[in-house]
């Protein structure tokens, strides 16, 4: 049997489903939970390997409640492997003690800063970090900039390196390629090389 995405819609809005119980002595039916109640569907592509499988994020009240294979996607047709099926965990995990959903506690949610010779991370805000990073870039670039080499205009710095990333989107990679080249960075590579 092939389930289309349309059939998923049928589930939406059902607060609780019941199933008749046969072969037992009880009158009441068990109440079955329905995790996708009122969930909004947003399509995505799996961020792990390069198969490019489609997945659907189910979002309820602004929270991610489930991620499963996109039945309309021609490559995976609703299927996902273990990594694909685990996508929820990048954002949300179930607490072992309470079974409650919570944001993955290991996610970075604040800018962290480690001062020279320090043993700890400190929380910072974005504005502080961006300003400080920009100053470091400028100091290093200005101190190392080569305008000419052997009579040729080279406009480069060898003192800054840039790595990454295949984990970023095309548009993000493009902007970084553009920005880093404009700074004169030539030590630029990423894990496609590994």
């Amino acid at each position, binding site marked *: *049997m092939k*389930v289309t995405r349309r*059939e*998923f819609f*049928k*589930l939406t809005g*059902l607060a609780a*489903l019941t*199933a*008749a*119980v*046969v*072969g*037992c*002595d*009880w009158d009441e039916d*068990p109440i*079955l*939970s*329905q*995790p996708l109640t009122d969930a909004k569907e947003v399509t995505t592509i799996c961020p792990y390997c390069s198969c490019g499988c489609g997945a659907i994020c189910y979002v309820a009240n602004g929270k991610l409640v*489930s*991620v*499963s*294979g996109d039945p309309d996607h021609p490559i*995976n047709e*609703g*299927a*996902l*492997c*273990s990594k*694909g*099926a*685990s996508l*929820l965990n990048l954002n949300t*995990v*179930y*607490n*072992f*003690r309470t*079974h409650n*959903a919570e944001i993955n*506690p290991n996610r970075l949610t604040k800018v962290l800063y480690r001062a020279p010779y320090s043993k700890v991370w400190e929380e910072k805000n974005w504005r502080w970090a961006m300003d400080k990073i920009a100053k470091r870039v400028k100091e290093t670039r200005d101190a190392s900039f080569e305008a000419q080499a052997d009579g040729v205009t080279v406009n480069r710095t060898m003192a800054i390196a840039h790595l990454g990333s295949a984990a970023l989107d095309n548009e993000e990679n493009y902007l970084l390629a553009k920005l880093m080249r404009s700074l004169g960075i030539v030590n630029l590579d990423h894990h496609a090389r590994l």
Partner: protein
Amino acid sequence: MANVVLVDTQKCMACRGCQVACKDWNRLPAGATKFRGNYTNPPTLQAHTWNHVVFTETDKGRWLFASYSCMHCTDAACINVCPVGAVQRTKSGTVWPDGDKCIGCGLCVQHCPFHVPQVSKATNKMGKCTGCAERVSQGLRPACVTTCPNGALLYGERGEMMQLAKDRVDALRRQGFSEASIYGDLEMHGLGRIYVLTEIPSAYGLPETPGYNASAWIWQLARRPLGTLTSIGLFSGLVVGFLRWRGERIQHKDNYSI
């Protein structure tokens, strides 16, 4: 029993999508595990792990994979032994544990020939595969079947699945798998999970002749005339006194906040 899951062990590549998709749909947490010289992990089904893939190496050098979860037996030990009727059969044929009624006595754990039900230490409730009753009642396939990349798990009407299984066994025999067979046709009067195997069942960790202790029927006989309240009264004492939860114990590390 209308619909069953067909597990084609020869197609299974052990990606373990089923194991995780089950957790996603059923909102189950993960626990701490260790690597024990085998890829199977967690090593058994658990109250919070309702599906897992078992990896077995054979003496002949083969590596076998099989996706496990509740077999949804026609003659289900867990239904019959449960003193409080917390294990029930749904209209779609799956064996469904009712957490509200479960008293965590562990009788089902003791009697299941497939070691499926487990009682959670945290909640003192039995947890196991529900057959995704809420999905299948809506015409969807169970989460494990839907996520399977290459048709190692199929779901459909029993007769149709049995025919597919027979065709597949014939094809495998032609390919040289002389031990190819179907598991689940007659076992426990018919399982809700039919396996296509290429080695004898025990090579996959399946009991050759599954069954359960006749004493289980005593509870069943006792339960019916006496009714629920009596059962609870009778058994809660026994449970506290004699029964031990035999499921996988989850060692919970303090720094392990999941």
